[in-house]
């Protein structure tokens, strides 16, 4: 299995633990990724607030580059990239005027975007292309006894529900169960973490992160699993500020791919747990059956 790969800026920056853990996990499952040559920023939520046409064109340049690979399927692990690339695809297909403007703009630099690349999220690929059975077979260090709160956040289920239920997504729940973990049921799995408001307007933004951490802790989670670099950053990085404003709610937040690496027994440089500000210490691996001490 081979996919075009759009890492996005965060996975090369503050969210590097996502890429560092996801790529080896996928390789371990026989998936090959081909990073787009000279990709540009997708535009995220900020560009849309300034100029819609340009935001769409910036995203479409990447779709055009993806089409050049001939792979027709592109992996976008960051939630914002995933949404923006999908959204650009929708706008180009739904609005002929937008298609014309963006098409001509791309043409001026010799690019072309037909809009036929499917933008996929890693959870979608893992659950629907690779399959939970194949994943279960690779588990050598099951996460028995580990209570994980799966946190999907906003932009992979809203506004487009492409591969999971919008109100109650379960793909990560099922994936974590396949790894042997205990899934914590909680009602906030798709609630907003505050997005970039944690930095721009802490009073409002941090409260949303605080609510998530508090609820996950109340329900007995050992760790929160995320799919998005901004969610991970928000839930991991502002503990001193949250403690100062409300109360301490220290709880580690890691990418689901880091938990997969642990369950597959991948080396520490591929699970990169040292990237977290609240360090996650996995429980000791129980001795395999039949190897008990006398």
């Amino acid at each position: 299995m081979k996919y075009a790969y759009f890492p996005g800026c965060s996975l090369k920056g503050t969210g590097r633990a996502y890429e560092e853990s996801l790529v080896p996990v996928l390789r371990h499952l026989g998936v090959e990724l081909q990073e787009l040559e000279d990709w540009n920023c997708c535009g995220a939520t900020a560009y849309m607030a300034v100029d819609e046409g340009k935001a769409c064109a910036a995203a479409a340049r990447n779709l055009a580059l993806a089409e050049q690979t001939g792979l027709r399927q592109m992996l976008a692990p960051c939630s914002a990239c995933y949404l923006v690339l999908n959204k650009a695809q929708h706008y180009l297909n739904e609005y002929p005027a937008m298609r014309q403007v963006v098409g001509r703009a791309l043409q001026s630099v010799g690019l072309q975007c037909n809009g036929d690349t499917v933008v996929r999220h890693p959870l979608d690929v893992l659950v629907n292309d690779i399959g939970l059975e194949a994943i279960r077979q690779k588990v050598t260090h099951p996460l028995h006894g580990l209570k994980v709160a799966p946190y999907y956040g906003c932009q992979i289920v809203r506004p487009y529900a492409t591969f999971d239920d919008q109100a109650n997504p379960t793909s990560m729940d099922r994936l974590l169960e396949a790894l042997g973990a205990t899934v914590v049921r909680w009602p906030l799995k798709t609630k907003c973490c505050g997005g970039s408001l944690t930095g721009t307007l802490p009073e409002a933004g941090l409260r949303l992160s605080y609510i998530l951490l508090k609820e996950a802790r109340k329900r007995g989670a050992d760790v929160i699993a995320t799919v998005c670099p901004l969610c991970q950053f928000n839930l991991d990085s502002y503990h001193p500020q949250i403690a100062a404003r409300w109360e301490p709610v220290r709880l580690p937040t890691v990418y689901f791919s880091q938990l997969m690496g642990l369950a597959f027994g991948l080396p520490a440089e591929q699970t990169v747990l040292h990237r977290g500000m609240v360090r996650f210490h996995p429980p000791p691996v129980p001795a395999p059956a039949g190897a008990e001490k006398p």
Partner: protein
Amino acid sequence: MEIKRTIKYEADRVPGFGREIMSVPGCEALEHCIQCGTCSGVCPLSIYMDYTPRQVMELVRSDFKNEVLQSHTIWLCASCYACTVECPRQIRITDIMYELKQRAIKERVYPRRFPIPVLAEEFTRMVHDHGRISETRLVSRMYLRTRPLAAVGMAGLGLQLLKSGRFSWKQDRIKQREQIARIMEAVDRENGKTEA
């Protein structure tokens, strides 16, 4: 104490504004709004807003341009899309908020030194100049332009990032930067044409 008129007058309207917004791709369904308030109810940030999302929808439709473009509401939207998904009339409220943000930036009517539009502008400039975002630099620029003193309070966070190997001062950039500039110029040219 500042005394302000709380009732809106007919004369405050900018006739045609609502129609104009509803003609933008993605914003068409606004005319079907039944003012049920589902958007305000599901919005995680409505408790901080000066106008709730439901009120913004009606203000736009009724041509109260200045009120919505100067509101804090549009900048508090975190793009979580909860309203868009829950709206019983399929109004893409998040996209309408984007459209209003664009106009507020274009007309420079957003609250001064408000960090959110500044972040959006700096973000856009960085994409235009380099093709990619370097998060540390972006956030630093935003702080310098809005709350230079608050930047000091972020030093601890910077240190933590440094320790975990996630801090980078290097500006990431793509090779074909002139391609981005040419694409953006072409979009401006095209939109100039379509407006004429």
